[in-house]
């Protein structure tokens, strides 16, 4: 798989804003960003209210995903180009989520909203209207998604990549310090995990590093590429960014994202936890 198969440049995006069969979608946790200005023609996907079940802690089910994409005017054959703020965290999460439900024709805008803005490209507050479709999703591809029991079994057997900041990894912080938010009961990391913060996979303009640079990064961190890999963070969005780097850019076959991540693992009764830096 080449970079062009999974990423588009901002230049490509600008040249294809009106291309039939290409749908741009902005995915953010802060949906006011979209209201303040978005790429012309882009639809909005709300990470919290549209991709999560509003009662259980889980994703919307297959029927829910079909209804969502139909409402957004996304068809099964459309190329969906996802972008967002925070260096594409939530766009990468949505990318992984689209793959999970079998939508293969999806790419990320390299650098996301940040690169687009730094380039000085146009943002608009005009509404986007797309005709409703009848989207059909597939069953979730669980080759891409790890659950808690598999994560516990992976200790000392598979690669575990903790992509949070060093202070979250060591157990000093449960979440980025400035956010009053739901956190795990205990701090630390899953034993045998290596700590490669998500930010190391990105350049300062938000674009992904090259496959060669990424391969070197994870090799240096001690990742054994002959083994299966599970990435996690706090709630699964930063680890989607790393999942994208490992699975889509380096091209490792068996990489899962553990979306339960530390908010689940750090609250489980009886599981092993390590603290401290490595």
């Amino acid at each position, binding site marked *: 798989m080449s970079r062009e198969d999974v990423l588009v440049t901002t230049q490509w995006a600008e040249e294809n804003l009106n291309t039939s069969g290409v749908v741009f979608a902005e995915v953010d*946790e*802060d949906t006011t960003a979209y209201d303040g200005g978005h790429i012309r023609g882009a639809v909005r996907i709300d*990470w*919290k209210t549209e991709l*999560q079940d*509003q009662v259980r*802690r889980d994703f919307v089910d297959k029927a829910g995903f079909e209804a969502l994409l139909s409402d957004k005017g996304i068809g099964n054959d459309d190329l969906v180009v996802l972008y967002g*703020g*925070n*260096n594409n*965290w*939530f766009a990468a999460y949505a990318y992984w989520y689209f793959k999970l439900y079998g939508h293969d024709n999806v790419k990320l805008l390299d650098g996301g909203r*940040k690169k687009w*803005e*730094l*380039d*000085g490209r146009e943002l608009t507050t005009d509404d986007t209207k797309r005709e409703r479709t009848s989207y059909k999703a597939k069953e979730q591809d669980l080759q891409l998604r790890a659950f808690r029991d598999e994560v516990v079994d992976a200790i000392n057997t598979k690669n575990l990549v903790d992509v949070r*900041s060093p*202070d979250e990894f060591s157990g000093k912080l449960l*979440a*980025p*310090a*400035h*956010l009053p*938010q*739901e956190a795990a009961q205990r701090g630390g990391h899953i034993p045998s995990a290596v700590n490669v*913060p998500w*930010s*190391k996979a990105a350049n*300062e*303009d938000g674009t992904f590093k090259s496959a060669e640079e990424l391969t070197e990064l994870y090799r240096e961190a001690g990742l054994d590429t002959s083994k299966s890999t599970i990435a996690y*963070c*706090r*709630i699964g*969005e*930063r680890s989607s960014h790393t999942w994208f780097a490992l699975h889509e850019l380096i091209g490792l076959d068996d990489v899962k994202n553990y979306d339960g991540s530390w*908010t689940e693992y750090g609250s489980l009764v009886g599981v092993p936890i390590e603290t401290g830096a490595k």
Partner: protein
Amino acid sequence: MSDGCGAPQQTATAADEDTNGQVVVAGTVTSSDGPLGGAYVRLLNADGEFAGEVQASPQGDFRFYAAAGDWTVRALHRTGNGEAAVTAGGPGVHQVAIAVS
């Protein structure tokens, strides 16, 4: 459901604001025309490693919750980049201005 990991809306920070024991690195991004809004401001540690990023408010304000130590704040904007060093001795507000050119 969990909240996200993103930064809260950026607002101005007074030099004497009570930080509840936190080490706050805060300031304003400016250009030759005055305050510059919307720059991406990155907090880098003493080794130059990325520690956090926020988008400055329309008035150019940014704020990080850091730890004591030496930091660099680096602003990226479509009109140019800039950076500044700041030493945070301990809890309280440590102000730093970034000029973008």
